[in-house]
């Protein structure tokens, strides 16, 4: 009975997924109720995290390159790319893409971290002018990203 309970607990914990942590960027507020990280500014720039499978297993440089090629081929314009190390020593890469959306220029920023068999993604999007106002704060905040246990 005790073993069964432990197995059940382990399964429940696995289903919860990783608990990513990151400082709230200046100018953003956090959605506490959403699964994973979710931030938004008063003028609608949105940030959220999600997990993807690192399959086939590859390193950060591979995925950053593949992502850039895929989005550029789809019509996104690579505007900036920045690879960095978090304060905890985890390597990450942010690529900012510009795209026409709803008659405006928008930015879709994708930050990738390789965490073992998983990829931790932090995505941000918003109209160009509004995004650029907070992009510095977001970059600073990404340095504090922690993929959790």
């Amino acid at each position: 009975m005790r073993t069964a309970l432990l197995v059940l607990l382990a399964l429940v914990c696995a289903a919860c997924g990783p608990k990513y942590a990151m400082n709230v960027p200046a100018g953003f507020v956090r959605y506490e109720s959403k699964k994973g990280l979710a931030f938004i500014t008063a003028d609608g720039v949105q940030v959220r995290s999600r997990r993807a499978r690192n399959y086939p297993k590859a390193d950060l440089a591979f995925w950053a390159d593949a992502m850039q090629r895929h989005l550029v081929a789809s019509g996104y314009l690579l505007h900036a790319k920045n690879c960095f190390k978090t304060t905890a020593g985890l390597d990450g890469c942010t690529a900012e893409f510009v795209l026409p959306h709803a008659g405006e220029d928008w930015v879709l920023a994708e930050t990738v971290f390789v965490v073992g068999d998983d990829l931790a993604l932090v995505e941000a999007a918003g109209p160009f002018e509004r995004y650029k106002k907070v992009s510095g704060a977001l970059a600073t905040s990404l340095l504090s990203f922690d993929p959790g246990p």
Partner: protein
Amino acid sequence: MNRICTACLLVYCLAYPTLARAADTAPAKVAAPAASKPAPDDRPTGDQKAIDGDPALRKDAEKAAPPAAERATSLTATIVVKVVHPQEVRKAAVERARAAGGWPTLVTDAELHLEVPQAALADTVDQLAAAGIVLQKSLQRVDRTEQIAQLQAKLKSKREILERLRTFFADSDTQSTLRIEQSMTQLVVEIESLQGELNVAESSARTAHVQASFQYHQRQRITYLRSPFEWLNTLDIDRFLAEF
């Protein structure tokens, strides 16, 4: 003697189209102009400076002629720059272009096209780039040297033919005069057209064209491409916004 002259004239008039074509295709091989007689007064109408070539302008052009190694190049710079206040940037760019001797050719909310002297091109583009975030920048060079040389050679040979035709008026009878006038009128039309083309080519080699866009719209919409890497297929602005 008169009969011989008239016969020569008729042969020349009949052969003129062939001569003109030969001058078009091999301008460098055109012979030196024949000794010219004073031109008659009843010349065909048209812009005489364009037809004969303005001596003053020609002198100026010779003075300012670039060294043989220098190429006549037209430059087009294209820049997509995101700025917070496009109106202010546009106004400042137009003022700077005017101060440098240029002028705007298109001014809209999202686009600004400028013609500026080639020497001012780098400054104009740099100042536009400094006003915001550059998304795209390119420079296109088109060598106009050959085009200009060909046009000048064609023009020269047509003017020489025109001069030669004028010399035949004195001894020609009525029918021959009519034929000569017809040929000269045609020649004047061709010379004016060539002079126009030459003016445009020379102008484009003197000024640079700047196309500034304040909005990125290289592609009107995003196309969906299937990636062999599953998670890359989930990178999409619409999905992101829908799932937020």
